[in-house]
């Protein structure tokens, strides 16, 4: 008995503290286990089964994963997601960094600008997507103030539909990344700038040779967060295509998360949807791991420079 109790501490006081500690963490830890831990395990297991939610699940081995490789819709969804990443991430990071650099100066009204740039972040993606669907409405939308763009079928042409989806995503993301870049800029040691000035560096040289290198850890972080968020794009696709062809004409707007939703909740193929979910998770995990490894290099670099 006392041997068991010794696990919790040698003295009665230590034991009492250990019990308090366990009691304090119990609600959240148990809740996390039930609502997140178990689903993670189930998600993994379910991808080896075929199940429509009604009949009992049937073991399918690796069939679902083989299907992923053959399914043209999965290929299209992956390609669409990567295309979105290619449009959204450079545009968004460039604009966010630009805004952060401008707002890092001692300018009047900088807080007003910061507030305005951040407003789309607190707007729901659903409301934002609804507004942008209306912006891109052929013949009626705001896009018509640019000559030639008003009559294009933005939301129904397969080669165009990713542009409105990218537009709303960038609009909603700039403010978020701007805040991260601003935090990074404020962490650049002043001494480095002062030293560069003494060495005769002008503003542009200081930006490229002091600010940008010192900002690289943040840039990597922002890049990772951006990749992860692009792989989670769903609301925009759902809202912007539901009025015409859900998921876009022949899947032209279908992203991985949208495909997961359609497979699981429209077609009730839980097993196959779980395999898609696992693929999504592996991709996100891969991006995170790559970032962590690269970041380790950056931290080393930083300490060497400083």
């Amino acid at each position, binding site marked *: 008995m006392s041997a068991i109790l010794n*696990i*919790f501490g040698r003295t009665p006081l230590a034991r009492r*503290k250990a019990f*308090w500690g*366990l*009691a*304090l*963490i119990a*609600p*959240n*830890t148990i809740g996390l286990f039930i*609502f*997140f831990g178990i689903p993670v395990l*189930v*998600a993994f297991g379910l991808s080896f089964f075929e199940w429509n*939610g009604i009949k009992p699940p049937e073991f399918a081995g690796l069939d679902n994963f083989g299907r992923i490789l053959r399914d043209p819709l999965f290929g299209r969804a992956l390609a669409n997601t990567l295309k979105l990443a290619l449009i959204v991430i450079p545009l968004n990071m460039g604009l966010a960094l*630009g805004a952060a650099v401008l707002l890092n100066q001692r*300018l009047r009204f900088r807080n007003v*600008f910061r507030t305005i*740039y*951040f*407003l789309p972040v*607190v*707007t*729901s993606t*659903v*409301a934002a997507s609804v*507004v942008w669907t*209306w*912006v891109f*409405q052929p*013949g*009626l939308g*705001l896009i*018509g103030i640019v000559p030639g763009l008003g009559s294009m079928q933005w939301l129904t042409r397969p080669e165009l539909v990713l542009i409105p989806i990218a537009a709303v995503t960038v609009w909603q993301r700039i403010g*978020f990344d701007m*805040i*991260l870049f601003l935090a990074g800029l404020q962490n650049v040691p002043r001494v480095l*700038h*002062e*030293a560069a*000035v*003494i*060495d005769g560096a002008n503003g542009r040289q200081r930006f490229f040779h002091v600010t940008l290198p010192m900002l690289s850890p943040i840039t990597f*972080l922002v890049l990772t*967060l951006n990749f992860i968020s692009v*792989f*989670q794009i*769903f609301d925009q696709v*759902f809202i912007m295509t*539901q*009025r015409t062809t859900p998921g876009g004409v022949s899947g032209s707007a279908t992203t991985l*998360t949208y495909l*997961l939703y359609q497979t699981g*909740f429209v077609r009730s193929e839980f097993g196959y949807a*779980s395999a898609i*979910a696992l693929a*999504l*998770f592996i991709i996100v*995990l891969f991006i995170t791991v790559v970032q962590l490894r690269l970041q380790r290099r950056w931290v080393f670099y930083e300490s060497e420079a400083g």
Partner: protein
Amino acid sequence: MTVQPVRSTGRVSAAPLDHIGIGIRVVSYVILIAGAFFMLLPFIWMASTACKPDAELAISPIRFFPENPSCLEVAGRLYEQSPNFNRYLLNSFLVTAARTIGQLITCSLAAYGFARYKFPGRSLLFALSLGLLIVPFQAILIPEFILIKGLGLRNTFGALIIPGVFSAFALFLLRQAFMQIPIDLEEAAEIDGANPLQILWRITIPLSIPAIAAFAVITIQAAWNDFLFPLVVANTTDTRVVTIGIALLQGQRDTPYNLIMMGSLIATLPMLALFVMLQRYFIEGVAQSGLRR
């Protein structure tokens, strides 16, 4: 060698850094104003459309401001088209409040336990909790749905609230904040005979208000704007949240866009108001959520 004079004549060295030439100043303002215009344009377009009568929706060239503003009439027709819209707003409000308060309770208890108490398995349990942060929620959507259904929670408020009460992210954020509080204060209270819950409630939480406010606004915003999960687990008139209400409105092909914009405007205004009032905490929360992850 060169650093020495800089330190002694701080003002001289500060000048080239802080002084912004008039040219750069003008260019900066021009870019910032153009940027602000683009960020605000969709909001203006939303509000102006929400006040346009049907006849003005299809006028070309496009009009920025309605000729006959009819906001109230459009709002009235929104409630004709979607009679339960206020119910959806109320549902969103209830779910958001319950999730935020619930998370504050479970996560501050757990954060305090992890921050201040030693018990077997502490590091492992903490690492496992944080490990969940890597898993994107979409990846466990299907088992989550099956679990909710199995527990008989589908189409109840329980489905919308209970999973949202537990959070690895809030646990991490609050633990960081609690660990920065000087432990002497808590020890003094302990000697005075206070139990851990009293110490947490009277000392630790009051001293962590900025961190808690940052966490709360982020949680509120995420809960209010949530869409995919509610869509999957609670899509009945009684339990629908406002984001689904907007999606439904837009999904009916005959709904004119002034009604949809009015609905979006009504659903967006509470968050915009909250942000403008508490923006310091929002920005703090974003900086933390991004940087510490």
